[in-house]
C-alpha cells in the first residue's frame, strides 16, 4: 500500500469489558461499533465499508443499518483484524469505499448468542426469527420473495419456467453440463413441486466439483502463456442475512449496489456488454439480476428472456455454460460463473459468443444476503 495513505480516525472498545452477560455476540460487535462511531463523530450512514470475522459482514451491516460498497469477511483467526486493516487500506486507495468499519465481538465467557447449526444457532437472529417457522434449506428460503415479485409485475410461474428452458438450450452445447437434453415449459411445470411455486426444474443441481483462478498484475500478465483476461470493474455489497428482512421483495439491494459500483468502475454502458453471467441458484435469480443490474426495467426481464434475447443468437447471451440450473452447482457456484466468463474472454467456451470483448459476471451469496460483480475485458485498456 502507499505510505501514510490512510489513518485511524475512530477507535473504541465495548462499553463494558470482562463479563458482559447482557449482550450477545452481535450485540458486542454493535456496542463497540457505536462507540467507535461516536469517537469519530460518524453515523452508520457515513460508513461504506465493513469488515469482521466471526459474525457475517451481512449480519453486521444490516444490524447497524449500513449499506456498504465493501465487505470483508476474511476470517483466519486472531490476526484477522490486522488483515482487515490491510484490505481496507487497499480498498480505500482503490476507491472501493471511503470509510471502513472493522469490528470484533466475542461472548467467550458468557456464551450469549453464538451458534453453529444451519441458519445459525437458536439464539442467532435467523435462529430466533426465521428457523422456527420451518425453512428446510435454500429451496424454502431463497424463494420466499418470488410470489410478491410475480404479483407486482403481473407475471406467472410459466414466466419463471422459461428461464430454465432457455438455459437448457445453452447447456446442450456444453459437453461438461450435467443436464443437456432439451426441456419444454410443460416439462418444467410438470416436474415435482418442491416449495410452491418452485418445481424441481426451477431449482439448481446438486453436484460435486471445484475451480480455481490465478491473478497477477496486468504488466506481468502479458508474459503468461494464456491470453490475459483483465478485470475492468468490480462491485460488492451485502444486505441482510435474513431473507424476510429484504428491503424490497422484487429487487435485491445488494445486487443494485454491487452492479452499479462495477459498471461505474469499468466506465462502460450496458450496450457495451457482450456476455453476461448471473448466478442462478433458482430460476428467479436471472430475472432479479437482469433488472437490478440495469439491463431491463423492473418487471421486464421475464419477457426479455422469453423473447430469446438471452438465448443462443440473442443480443445478450446469458449463462452460456447452462448455469446452476443445468451445468453444475456444488454449493458455491460463483467460481463456475467466473470460469465461464474467463473462457468466453479467452475465446474458448463450448458455446462461444463470437467476438465477445466484455463479460459481466454477477454473483449472489446466501439468500440475497450478499453480492459481487466482476466485469472482464480481453482487451488491454
Amino acid at each position, binding site marked *: 500500500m502507499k505510505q501514510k495513505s490512510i489513518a485511524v480516525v475512530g477507535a473504541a472498545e465495548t462499553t463494558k469489558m470482562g463479563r458482559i452477560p447482557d449482550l450477545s455476540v452481535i450485540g458486542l460487535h454493535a456496542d463497540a461499533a457505536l462507540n467507535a462511531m461516536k469517537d469519530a463523530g460518524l453515523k452508520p450512514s457515513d460508513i461504506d465499508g465493513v469488515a469482521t470475522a466471526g459474525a457475517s459482514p451481512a449480519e453486521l451491516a444490516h444490524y447497524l443499518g449500513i449499506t456498504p460498497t465493501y465487505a470483508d469477511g476474511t476470517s483466519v483467526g486472531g490476526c484477522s483484524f490486522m488483515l482487515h486493516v490491510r484490505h481496507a487500506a487497499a480498498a480505500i486507495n482503490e476507491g472501493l469505499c471511503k470509510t471502513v468499519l472493522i469490528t470484533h465481538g466475542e461472548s467467550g465467557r458468557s456464551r450469549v448468542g453464538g451458534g453453529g447449526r444451519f441458519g445459525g444457532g437458536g*439464539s442467532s437472529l435467523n*435462529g*430466533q426469527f426465521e428457523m*422456527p417457522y420451518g425453512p428446510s434449506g435454500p429451496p*424454502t428460503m431463497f424463494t420466499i420473495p418470488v410470489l410478491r415479485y410475480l404479483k407486482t409485475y403481473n407475471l406467472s410461474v410459466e414466466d419463471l419456467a422459461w428461464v430454465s428452458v432457455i438455459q437448457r438450450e445453452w447447456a446442450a452445447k456444453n459437453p461438461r453440463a450435467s443436464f443437456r437434453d432439451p426441456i419444454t415449459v410443460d416439462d418444467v411445470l410438470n416436474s415435482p413441486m418442491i416449495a410452491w411455486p418452485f418445481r424441481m426444474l426451477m431449482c439448481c443441481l446438486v453436484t460435486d466439483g471445484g475451480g480455481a483462478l490465478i491473478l497477477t498484475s496486468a504488466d506481468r500478465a502479458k508474459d503468461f502463456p494464456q491470453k490475459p483476461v483483465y478485470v475492468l470493474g468490480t462491485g460488492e455489497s451485502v444486505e441482510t442475512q435474513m431473507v*424476510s428482512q429484504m428491503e424490497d421483495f422484487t429487487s435485491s439491494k445488494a445486487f443494485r449496489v454491487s452492479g452499479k459500483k462495477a459498471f461505474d468502475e469499468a466506465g462502460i454502458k450496458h450496450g457495451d456488454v457482450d456476455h453476461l453471467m448471473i448466478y442462478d441458484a433458482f430460476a428467479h435469480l436471472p430475472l432479479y439480476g437482469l433488472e437490478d443490474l440495469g439491463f431491463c426495467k423492473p418487471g421486464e426481464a421475464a419477457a426479455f428472456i422469453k423473447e430469446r434475447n438471452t438465448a443462443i443468437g440473442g443480443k445478450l447471451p446469458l449463462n452460456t455454460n447452462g448455469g446452476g440450473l443445468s451445468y453444475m452447482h456444488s454449493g458455491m457456484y460463483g467460481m463456475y460463473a467466473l470460469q465461464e466468463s474467463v473462457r468466453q474472454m479467452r475465446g474458448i467456451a463450448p458455446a462461444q459468443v463470437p467476438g465477445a470483448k466484455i463479460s459481466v459476471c454477477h454473483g449472489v451469496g446466501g439468500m440475497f444476503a450478499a453480492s459481487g460483480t466482476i466485469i472482464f475485458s480481453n482487451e488491454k485498456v
Partner: protein
Amino acid sequence: MPQRMLPEPTPETRHFWEGCAAGELRLQRCAHCGGKSYFPPRPFCPGCGSRDVETYKASGKGVLWSYVINMRPRPDMGTEPYAIAVVQLAEGPRMMTNIVGCPQTPEALQLDMPLRVSFAKQSDTISLPLFEPA
C-alpha cells in the same frame, strides 16, 4: 416427531419473546429520528444509530406479503406441507411466520389478505407469533 426448532432469546430480544408469551406482539421504534418502527429487535435504531428507543405493543394486524409452501416438511414440523410466510405488519416492519387457521394451499393463501397475530404456545417461555386470516 422431534421437538420443534425454537428460538433462544438473547438479552436484546427477551422483551419480544416475553411479549409473545404474554400474548403481545412487541415492536420497537426510535425516540430520536421520527419514531420509525423496526424489526427484528435490537437496542438501537438501524436508521440513525441512536440508543434512545422504546418498546411498544403492536396492533398484531398485517397482510400476507409473500410465501412458499414447503412440500417436503422439516421433520420437526410434521408431515403435511406448510406455508413459510412473510407478513407485512401494519406498523411497517415485516416478519417471517406461519399462517394458521386456513388450508395451506395457493388458493387459500392470497397475497395481501388481511391477517392478525395468534400466539402458539410451545413451552413455558416460548410462544411463536403466528398469523391467521382476520
